[in-house]
């Protein structure tokens, strides 16, 4: 579960510590009540937690202490992921030498002393990507995500992995949230026509070639939840992945909510702001929902119905959107193969090969549900 603090609670370290204590504590408390045996809590940094590295460190230490208490009291097996915020805006700062960069690296050092896993949503190449996306310039998208993003990740992840080794922490993974998810969200639902869904799907396949860099540098997973490219990552590397779908509707909408669960190792909700609901607070409610999904997935395996469960999840969404189509496991495998087969040629050739494979898969599929809606003419607003 991924709790987010309420606006205003970030004003001081004291108020933010209290907010996380309650939000994480409520989620932990709900697990023994409903009999869920395990929980992963992701503390996804808000700006202040990375900008003040000691804040992120203290919140990570507090969360670790809470988890120790629940292990001692109820035998609950819990783990903590800290996701450091990428404070850099590529168009405004030098990506390697800015003060923000130093704060991020310091945050990795502080949080990896207490968290079990650290991750990041890195933003390299976003300045070029944003320009290219608005112009449907696939060359620019390849350059932004598939080349610049890879160079930035290689530079960043070699340092993250070294820090994690020093502090005996797991170097989890990265996500192309800042680019491929931007494209996916701008493409939107079936009635949206601001960005073509196929461009967003191609951006996703390029993102897989980019996010792979973390694992090439020594990250071991679990991959970051909002990396919708993770099924392709899993096909290429075999690392455990976190995914998010229907339970992340509290944070955003997507068209692959069941399908994306088909190959998950950890099931997530992206982000839920801490508030009251009828059933309790949001963090306890969403942790319970996630836990029941996991119980269903695990029961499918125990009963020998894992293939049937996988097919139900995939077939509920596969023709809903080109994005869903390309991250379906068989297609993810094909795209992953294209990327891996071209890795020796460089970052750009492998990203292009992945995108070409994704494009050929989309072109060859006549059953897309989106097609009829997209045939309607665009109207001037």
């Amino acid at each position, binding site marked *: 579960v991924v709790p987010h603090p309420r606006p205003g609670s970030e004003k001081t370290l004291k108020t933010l510590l209290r907010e996380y204590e309650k939000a994480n504590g409520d989620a932990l408390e709900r697990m023994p009540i409903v009999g869920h045996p395990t929980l992963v809590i992701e503390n996804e940094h808000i700006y202040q937690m990375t900008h003040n590295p000691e804040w992120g460190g203290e919140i990570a230490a507090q969360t670790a202490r809470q988890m120790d208490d629940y292990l001692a009291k109820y035998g609950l097996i819990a783990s903590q992921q800290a996701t450091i915020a990428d404070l850099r805006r*590529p168009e*405004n700062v030098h990506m390697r030498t800015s003060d923000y960069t130093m704060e991020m690296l310091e945050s990795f050092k502080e949080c990896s002393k207490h968290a079990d896993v650290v991750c990041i949503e890195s933003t390299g190449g976003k300045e070029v990507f944003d*320009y290219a996306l608005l112009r449907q310039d696939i060359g620019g998208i*390849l350059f932004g995500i598939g*080349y610049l993003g890879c160079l930035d990740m290689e530079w960043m992840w070699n340092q993250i992995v070294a820090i994690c080794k020093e502090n005996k922490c797991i170097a989890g993974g990265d996500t192309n949230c800042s680019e491929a998810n931007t494209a996916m969200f701008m493409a939107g639902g079936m009635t949206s026509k601001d960005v073509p869904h196929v461009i967003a799907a191609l951006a996703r396949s390029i993102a897989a070639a980019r996010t792979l860099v973390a694992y090439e540098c020594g990250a071991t997973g679990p991959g970051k939840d909002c990396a919708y490219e993770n099924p392709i990552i899993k096909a290429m590397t075999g690392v455990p992945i976190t995914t998010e779908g229907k339970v992340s509707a509290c944070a955003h909408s997507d068209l692959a909510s069941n399908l994306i669960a088909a190959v998950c190792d950890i099931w997530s909700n992206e982000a839920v702001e801490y508030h009251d609901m009828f059933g309790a607070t949001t963090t306890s409610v969403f942790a319970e929902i996630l836990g029941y999904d996991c119980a269903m997935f695990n029961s499918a395996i125990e009963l020998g119905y894992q293939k049937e469960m996988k097919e139900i999840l995939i077939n509920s969404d596969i023709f809903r959107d080109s994005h869903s189509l390309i991250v379906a496991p068989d297609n993810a495998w094909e795209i992953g193969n294209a990327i891996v087969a071209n890795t020796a040629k460089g970052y750009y050739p492998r990203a292009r090969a992945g995108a070409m494979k994704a*494009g050929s898969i989309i072109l060859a599929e006549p059953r897309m549900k989106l097609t009829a809606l997209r045939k309607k003419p665009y109207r001037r607003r």
Partner: protein
Amino acid sequence: MKDMEALPEDEGNFVDMCLKKYKKDVKGFNPDSYGLK
């Protein structure tokens, strides 16, 4: 697909082409941020 097929095969040629284009077109793009000239 045609747009992708038309792009250079070679990474060096592609990067040269992109640096020339996006250094001019994208406000704030600094190749040095990525170890590029």
